[in-house]
């Protein structure tokens, strides 16, 4: 499989936060969801990829090109939608698309206007009069109208209602009908990613915790609820994100068979329940684990 984006050992240090050897890759033609809570480092990673901020160590290759040495070419071939949209609010949607599109040699004005029609954006409306959802669509139309090979979207769905979010997801599915286009999108709304992503990468406190095929993640991870007659202290550190309640405790593992063997080996009459997990559950448990390790 061709790799379209390859991040290897990325280190970026801020005073109170750092990316700790972040590594992951996206194969060509697929959608990767980038999940983490606010402040986990999603935007920092994306800004490093786009060469908007410097980083201390590691390497990033986009289309096999070094992100720092070839940032101009990469930006021409990437469609980037940032969290904040920098449009001229007092100018019309059409004017903004024309103006910002002008920075891209491959900007296609016909494509831009047909995208606007498709997204139901009135080109004669001022940007300040557009709803939040409309602004996201405008940014997406701008990003798509130079026919990018990689679409990078930073929190495209946050703050949007479910109807518009679903519409956006449908648009993204349409984009990857072209096998040569890949999508990397970050979100803390995991249900969006759970639907359409092929690959999922979890980031927490600047560290990649899981990066795998989405179906494999959902197949592997299981949530255990175990009654209080067993003691978590007696079990090895297989469970992560352990929550202790009044009647029992719960935690998550990617080796359910191994855990059952250990549990029933130590406690032959252990009462327990195994459940499938959602990406949301995984994120919550990852954060809990991180906080437990800190405190």
């Amino acid at each position, binding site marked *: 499989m061709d790799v379209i984006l390859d991040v290897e050992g990325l280190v970026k240090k801020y005073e109170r936060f750092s990316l700790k050897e972040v590594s992951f890759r996206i194969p060509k033609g697929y959608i990767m969801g980038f999940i983490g809570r606010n402040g986990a480092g999603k935007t920092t990673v994306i800004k490093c990829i786009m060469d908007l901020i410097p980083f201390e160590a590691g390497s990033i290759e986009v289309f096999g090109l070094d992100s720092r040495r070839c940032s101009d070419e990469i930006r021409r071939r990437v469609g980037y939608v940032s969290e904040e949209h920098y449009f001229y609010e007092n100018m019309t949607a059409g004017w903004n698309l024309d103006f910002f599109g002008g920075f891209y040699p491959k900007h296609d004005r016909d494509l831009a206007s047909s995208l606007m029609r498709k997204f139901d954006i009135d080109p004669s409306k001022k940007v300040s009069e557009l709803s939040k959802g409309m602004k996201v669509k405008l940014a997406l139309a701008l990003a798509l109208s130079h026919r990018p090979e990689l679409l990078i979207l930073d929190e495209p769905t946050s703050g949007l209602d479910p109807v518009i979010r679903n519409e956006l997801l449908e648009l993204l599915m349409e984009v990857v*009908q072209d096998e040569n286009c890949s999508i990397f999108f970050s979100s803390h709304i995991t249900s969006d990613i759970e639907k359409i992503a092929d690959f999922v990468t979890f980031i927490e406190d600047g560290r990649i915790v899981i990066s795998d095929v989405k179906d494999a993640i959902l197949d592997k991870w299981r949530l255990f609820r175990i009654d209080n007659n067993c003691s978590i202290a007696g079990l090895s550190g297989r469970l992560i994100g352990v929550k202790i309640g009044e009647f029992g405790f719960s935690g998550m593992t990617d080796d359910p068979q191994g855990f059952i063997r250990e549990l029933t080996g130590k406690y032959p009459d252990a009462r327990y329940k195994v459940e499938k997990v959602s990406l949301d559950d995984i994120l919550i448990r990852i954060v809990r684990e991180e906080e437990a390790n800190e405190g």
Partner: protein
Amino acid sequence: MFVALSNNDPNPLYEQIKKQIIEQIMSGELPPGYMLPSIRALARELEISVITVKKAYEDLEASGYIVTNQGKGSFVAQAGAEFVRESRLKEIQKSFEKGIALCRELGYDDDGIRKVFGDILEEYGQP
């Protein structure tokens, strides 16, 4: 072709896709040579990941139901339905043989075996 997925179904999504396509091949609704939608088109239609659909198609291909021509698409295999029906029949024959052998061990004669079979059929008969 008709595929509808359910989140309430305990089977994984790719299994649901496989099962529904196999049923339609076996019933003849999807005849040999029928062109299936592309992996990406079906993923968009069902609003699921491309990889999930890919896995279903790969499994269907491995078990001989469909063939994929690079660049052309995926088609219901020519001998697919027939081949599958035959191999299923062999499986069925084997499990009946096993049942008959068990009956013989208990000393049933042919009429006795027919009666056992009749009783079971009644119990599991068409609803």
